């Protein structure tokens, strides 16, 4: 019961200041910056080489699933959700309400899942609201009757959702907000991508690779979509348990 209340409180926190909505809007903007030019320069116009061929259904599917590009923003959303508690000392009132640390951490992770899901749904909805009408105007099939499209879109929403609790767990290990943000950016934006290039066999088992596999059209470099989902869920589970143990430290 307390878990439900704790999760509801987490959602209320998201909307009580501009921080969380700001990060999600940032992620949305980042996605749109890549979606809109692809729509505009879709390669069907004569003489433009930069675009992709939208008459290829696979490219349309990737476009509709492009919300996953916001993964760095969503992991930062999770990091901020957790580190804010330490930064402003609100962790104290959180733990006075739920002194069982493991349950408090689980509530926070659940809050992260809900926050991630809401963000993923919002970004996907906006992408659809732009892409589908534009494709209709251009007379291109939006592939909405194709099961593969929905697997990619729903998979992408699931993958994006899970980035948020991963950020929450990270924030529990690294209580300093700035340090946690820098480490998240350094690891997910730089380190993982470098590792993918250097060790492709390892790359598919890293978070970025697993996440990409969930929403992919069948990239042979990556795991299967369900393999990616399992790997990502394993990360969430392991990091979540580790975070719950970390939260047992004294709150001074």
């Amino acid at each position, binding site marked *: 019961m307390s878990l439900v209340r704790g999760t509801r409180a987490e959602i209320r*926190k998201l909307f*009580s200041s501009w921080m969380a909505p700001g990060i999600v809007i940032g992620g949305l903007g980042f996605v749109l910056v890549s979606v809109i030019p692809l729509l505009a320069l879709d390669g069907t116009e004569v003489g433009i080489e930069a675009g992709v061929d939208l008459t290829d259904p696979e490219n349309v599917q990737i476009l509709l699933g492009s919300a996953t590009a916001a993964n760095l923003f969503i992991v930062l959303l999770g990091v901020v959700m957790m580190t804010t508690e330490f930064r402003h000392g609100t962790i104290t009132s959180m733990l*006075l309400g739920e*002194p069982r640390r493991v349950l408090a951490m689980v509530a926070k992770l659940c809050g992260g899942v809900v926050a991630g899901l809401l963000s993923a749904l919002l970004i996907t909805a906006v992408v659809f609201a732009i892409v589908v009408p534009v494709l209709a105007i251009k007379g291109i099939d939006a592939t909405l009757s194709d099961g593969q499209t929905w697997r990619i879109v729903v998979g992408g929403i699931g993958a994006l959702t899970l980035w948020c609790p991963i950020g929450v767990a990270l924030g529990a290990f690294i209580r300093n907000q700035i340090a946690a943000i820098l480490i998240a950016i350094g690891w997910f934006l730089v380190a993982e991508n470098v590792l993918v290039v250097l060790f492709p066999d390892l790359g598919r088992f890293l978070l970025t690779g697993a996440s990409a596999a969930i929403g992919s059209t069948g990239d042979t470099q990556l795991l299967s979509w369900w393999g990616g989902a399992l790997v990502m869920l394993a990360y969430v589970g392991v990091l979540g348990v580790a975070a719950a143990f970390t939260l047992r430290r004294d709150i001074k």
Partner: protein
Amino acid sequence: MTAPIEAIELTKHFGTNIAVSDLSFVVRPGAVTGFLGPNGSGKTTTLRMLLGLVRPTRGRGLVLGSPYARLHNPMRSVGAVLEADGFHPGRSARNHLNILAIANGIDRSRVDEVLTLVGLADVSKRRVGRFSLGMKQRLALASALLGDPDVLLLDEPANGLDPEGIRWLREFLRYLASSGKTVLISSHVLSEVEHTVDDVVIIRSGKLVRSGTLRDVLGEREAGAFVRSPDAERLAIVLRAAGATATPAGSDQLTVRGIDPAGVGELAAREGVVLHELRPAALSLEAVFFELTADTAAGEAS
């Protein structure tokens, strides 16, 4: 009846530093207990151990008979003010309380009640980042009272308050006491709590110095009197002959220990010494505190 708050041999080491050492005390139900000690004497660490935020190295802290973490819906039975800055600066006061109400299953109407109670109703929509320290202290009290708990732990709630705020707090504590709540209030400014507390727990360097009712702790000091006489020197001789100590406190004044004012008056009348003033020597909690902690003060850093 279960003690509302009980410390049993509470001990906390931070590395090699011993913050609290074998501290045991019991807080009476319905009483306001002052938890007193100099800065750095372990008051905050003790309160945080009682609230399950800091894990004791040894010993146990019990609230309402069980460890805080075992309480069902703790914010409804125990309220705590720990620091005035435990707020997200971007959130409004109302939102801060709303979040706590949701997390703890407390009716939302209670948010308005506590905002009115602490006098923040008019500024409830203002971001806490724009609050003065005094307003934050009031919001911290509002948070503690949200679940209408019967037991309150307040850590230096007067810190950073201006004189008006301190007066407000004093009246507020009296109101809490009159409504039958058990309050444990820590302070290093003794004059703040002297007129409010029923009991005291005095610690120094993490160790218990004295605990008991304020009356006992003050009353067990020797009786004393303050006297003014144009013939103070002769009076002093008379008093010393009767077994008292008489210390000159100015040309015509004496501070007397060992005889109460009535005794001083009788002796003076018998010896025909003129008195200009005679009153009980005020024993302040502060004076007693310094007296009690004087022994342990020597050679120990606080």
